[in-house]
């Protein structure tokens, strides 16, 4: 469990010092007045320090920090599938079901995962360990079928490989 982040109050007290430093380093990469450009990396930083998901308060605080309208943060966060708007499990499994993976058997992988974890897409296991997601192409067609476990790509999957993979996860 991460420590609670400061989500209200003055701009220079938001989140915590470590996060502010990370955000500032991203903001400084863009010309002054264009802090909106930093919204994607900023959302990643916040999601990582907030149990893997973005709350409304977190996004509002980011809007305040970047000095942009809140809706501009919501637009980006709702657009990309890598941002979670509801609480997720400890590990996130994103299975690609796009055309290349589908042709190479992603359906079998998806079914196997759903049976093995006992959950459907968009759900989290009862113990809070895994969240299963169906995603669009992750650009690894050469290794289809594939999935993304947290930050790691796993390619050329078979049901056995999936079992082995799940076994390794703590």
């Amino acid at each position: 469990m991460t420590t609670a982040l400061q989500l209200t109050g003055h701009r220079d007290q938001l989140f915590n010092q470590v996060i502010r430093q990370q955000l500032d380093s991203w903001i400084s990469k863009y010309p002054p007045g264009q802090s909106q450009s930093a919204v994607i990396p900023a959302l990643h930083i916040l999601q990582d320090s907030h149990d893997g998901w973005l709350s409304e308060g977190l996004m509002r605080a980011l809007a305040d920090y970047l000095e942009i309208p809140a809706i501009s943060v919501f637009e980006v966060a709702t657009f990309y599938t890598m941002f979670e708007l509801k609480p997720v499990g400890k590990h996130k499994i994103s299975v690609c079901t796009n055309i290349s993976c589908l042709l190479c058997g992603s359906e079998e992988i998806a079914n196997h995962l759903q049976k093995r974890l006992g959950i459907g897409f968009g759900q989290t296991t009862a113990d809070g360990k895994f969240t299963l997601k169906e995603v669009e192409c992750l650009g690894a067609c050469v290794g289809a079928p594939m999935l993304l476990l947290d930050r790691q790509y796993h390619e050329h999957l078979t049901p056995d490989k999936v079992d082995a993979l799940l076994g390794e996860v703590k």
Partner: protein
Amino acid sequence: MVNIEIDGIPLRVDSAKMIIQAADEAGIDIPRFCYHKNLSIVANCRMCLVEVDKARKALPACATPVANGMKVFTQSEIALQAQRGVMEFLLINHPLDCPICDQGGECELQDLSLGYGSGISRFSEKKRVVKDKDIGPLVQTDMTRCIHCTRCVRFGQEIAGIKELGATGRGEHMEIGTYVEHSLASELSGNIIDLCPVGALTSKPFRYKARAWEMTSHPSIAMHDAVGSNLDLHTRQNEVMRVVARDNDSVNQSWISDRDRFSYLGLKHPDRLLNPMIKQNGEWQVTDWQTAMEFAVDGLKHVKTKNGADQIAGLISPTATLEEGYLFQKWLRAFGSQNVDHRLRQQDFSDAGHDQFSAMSLADIESSDAIVLLGCNIRSEAPLLAHRVRQSAYAGGLISDINFFKTDLLMPVDRQVVVNSAQLFVLLSGVAKTLLQRVDETTAKAWRHMMREKAPSATEQNIAMQLANAHQAVIIVGALANQHPQASAIRSLAALISELTGAHLLILPDANSQALHLAGALPHCDASQELKDGLNANAIWEEQLRAYVLFNIEPEFDCADPAAALLALQRAGFVMAINSFQCDSLRDYADVLLPLAAFTETSGTFVGLDHQWQSFTGAVAPPGESRPGWKILRVLGNISKFNGFDYVSSEGVRQELQDQLNRLSSARKSIYIPAEITNVNGVQLISEVPVYRTDSLVRHSKALQLTPENQFLDTMRISPALAEKYGLHQGDAVQIQQDEFAVSATVLIDEQVAENMAHLAAASPLSARLGNAFGNVELSAMMESIDA
């Protein structure tokens, strides 16, 4: 300039133009949804695809710049096929609910699908449905109908300065909305109704009321602020059904404020005065016009014989027309009374006669590179002027906001300085002192008593230098300054600074008060600028005269000192009101009520801050027995047996005034030099008129009264320091004592309010029970909560 050809028509156009702009100028029709001439170009609807010679596929006309020798075809096979294809995609998710859609009959999608769509859909899959959002009392949403043109999103970002709507989600799941449901906070939000090409955003109060083809359009002018936005009144069977913007690039471009758009809802309010009424032996009687007017004239004549004509006073609303103002003062002056005024909310008149109403076009304000807002909550006072200031700020103009509280102007602001009355004079004299160091001895000497010893601060020097160095600078003096008890000193310091820097000085008029000024509805001079010695709006109440004539005002809301006004009216022997609305207090003190037509029902002239004379005519007949103001005043003149009241039209009135004004030489007046400034001690009120409490029509518009802007009428905003001093906490009930009057309000602690000042809305039922605006008050915590 380049030479191009559209559909074989040779055109010579500016090389910075897009094809669609060139086509629009030439009157060649290209279909479009996302393109709007006053918004940025995004090219996301693709409806304007046209064939361009030598291009390998159809190009969007809105985002393709013209080039020399370019040949464009809007009706070729390639263009039509592309447009048909786009239309088919647009209609995939669009519901076929035109019969129950408010936009039906004036829908751009409906029109274009008739021209470019196919009769039968090839799409047999399920259409998506998007949940509606509640975005407040003014705009109705039906988001399933949205085609994602993003005009509303761009309007918020680029014109209103507040991006509240956005596109969330992706692909099939993309939705336009606020993400978290809330009421739109922009005072320009209604424009997205006009902008929406489909029925996704429609007017909530107008919903299911009428069809576009049943209504007739009448041009008119908005009377609620000094901009004079151009309107189209849509009427059906003698009823104004809705109000939309009429394009006028020199005034309001394509936009109008929500106040101008929704004030018409007040026209049908049950409190509308519909019949002439007279009070006899304490009983109100409905009567005919002749009887009522004779009664009124007799009443005034009686006062004149018994007490003298100087015991009669007339007050006229700043929303009255030029013609009404002229006849009003002409009639009262014929009686022999010089006590005529329209500056109802002002308290300090010592600079009267030195007035410098310099005209300034809205385009000039937009192109200024330094703007100082002085006691001006510009978003609420004149929303479309705020829009012009915002465009200046977006273009790099430096905006300085000096006010008694900080408010979000929704634009990049160079500095916001929060001052109380004493600090304001320190600041202004500091700015002036910086500049005086550079001028001749005589001017400096004349103003020495206003200057303090201390050297100007960095901020003061900065403001002075910004104004002096600007290519074009403006100082806008707003209502909060003009209604201040020491307004003359504020205005004259602003005039001095303007003279020393070459900046324009814009004393922001209240509604149509520029016209009423020209019409001579003033105690110190008439329309021919002959000097008179009448009582001003303040003295008229203080002197407690015998007879009052009110023209479309509700004294407890429209005057600087509600308590004094009420007392004077109750003690007066004779009160007549020519009003559009009646209320209990009016029935209590008045003796005659004459029903007045609203601006939609009369012809007249508006003169805004740009000094343009904009005349308009009535769109509907006045309801009941009510009559246009100029006609009422003409007949009152006749019944009073005065000469020169035989007008046949309002144009005749206007012409007479214009002839008088043409004879005047425009002598430049000197700047008023105030005596030393006395500082106020104790807590001073900031009596700001909220955006939807400005005049009686606006106050009777139900939808406007429901907006979030109007929810703080019973709230007193004070700084944390002041709250601590009086032991007040957030949400506490506080007693506000002003002389013998006391009211209770809820405390809102706000660091943005100046020290030792308490912000309390004026023109509200609460402040109607208090004395003068910007008065001194005593605060005390109330022991029991209000519920107990």
